């Protein structure tokens, strides 16, 4: 099944302050779209509008499945890694992964959650409380959650923030692997290197 997200002339303003307007974009399964722009240009808001978490002030976002409008709400197809999304500090890494996958109706055993943690470089810390994690480890856990949920559309907002060189490589591999598995990736970034991952780019 081919997924197509059509961003049709959307704009967003807060009160009288215009954040962005007249944004058009289109992305299909297996592709990566990068969104760039300076701080405060509205990249995070743009991703939240695509996810269906924030309403645009004008225009609309359409989700097409094999060229037909999706009967389900588009939020059900999305996964989001963002600085604004936190994990539960009172749960362990593995408990977080199991909880979030259960919420999305994805079966994930403790062994599978531990395996994803290892892939994301959390290894021996997978059973520790998230409260004891560094910011980089928390970022890796967010990547582990989206990997475990494996949604058809990945929304990545500054996914490399707080990550070391190894973590940045991991993000690159994750994006290419998601594309290979036919997921659409929308990547908001300030890193010039990451901006090259996309087949197309929009600048806000």
């Amino acid at each position, binding site marked *: 099944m081919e997924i197509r997200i059509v961003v049709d002339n959307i704009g967003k303003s807060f009160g009288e302050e215009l954040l962005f307007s007249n944004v058009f974009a289109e992305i299909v399964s297996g592709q990566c779209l990068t969104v760039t722009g300076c701080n405060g240009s509205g990249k995070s808001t743009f991703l939240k509008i695509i996810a269906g*978490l924030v309403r645009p002030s004008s225009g609309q976002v359409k989700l097409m499945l094999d060229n037909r409008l*999706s009967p389900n709400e588009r939020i059900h197809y999305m996964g*989001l890694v963002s600085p604004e*999304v*936190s994990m*539960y500090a009172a749960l362990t890494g593995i408990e977080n992964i199991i909880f979030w996958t*259960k*919420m*999305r*109706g994805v079966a994930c055993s403790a062994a599978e959650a531990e395996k994803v943690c290892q892939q994301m470089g959390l290894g021996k810390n997978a059973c520790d409380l998230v409260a004891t994690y560094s910011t980089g480890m928390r970022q890796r856990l967010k990547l582990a959650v989206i990997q475990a949920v494996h949604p058809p559309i990945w929304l990545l907002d500054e996914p490399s923030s707080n990550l070391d060189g190894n973590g940045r490589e991991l993000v690159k591999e994750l994006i290419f692997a998601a594309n290979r598995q036919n997921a659409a990736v929308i990547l908001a970034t300030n890193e010039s290197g990451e901006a090259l991952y996309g087949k197309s780019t929009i600048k806000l």
Partner: protein
Amino acid sequence: MARVPSSSSSAVWAVLTKEALCESRTRYAVGALVMFALTALSSVSMAIAGMSLPPELAAALLWVVLFFCAMAGLARVFVQEQEAGTLLGLRLYAASQAVFWGKLLFNLIILLGLSCLVVPLFTVFVAVEVGAWLPFITVLTLGCVGMATVSTLTAAMVMYAQGKHAIFTVLTFPILLPQFLSAINATAKILSGDIPDLSQYLFMAGYDSAVVAAGVLLFDYLWQE
């Protein structure tokens, strides 16, 4: 291809166990609730110095303690999600009804657990005798269901507001007032050695059904911001 958020019993259970696990590790709500109950009951006990209170006053005291305990801790279920930054993820990945039922059941369990602590202390500190335990437990359970449901809904309403704790109490009290007055009347009857009328039970059960139905219908709108 789309993994539609599950609102099944397993998702409700997942929310409930997550709440219980987080609470057992942080003791955010239970600590506030228990401390408030102990302080209120011991203060009244010392103030009345062994005097016995009339049943109406004792019943009102019991429900005032339970109400303010609820106000002290039950808003946590949504307020803490907002403050910790986990709310956005929950809105993205979870079904609204699973969140509502999971959090409602957690609040109810907390409130019933608190009642198990408060009632024995209340009978000792305020020197009242409960003659008919079955009607008393029924009234207590019906009152707690109403209180937990209304608290869960209003907590969801105020989670984005500034001064959320004050607004939470101000919003919850008028909605809860009919159930609150019925519970006090029914409890006063029991404490005076009588048994509440069937109509009192029916009113309380009807109120609970109405607020639960309103919660199920309204929560989707609150959840979508």
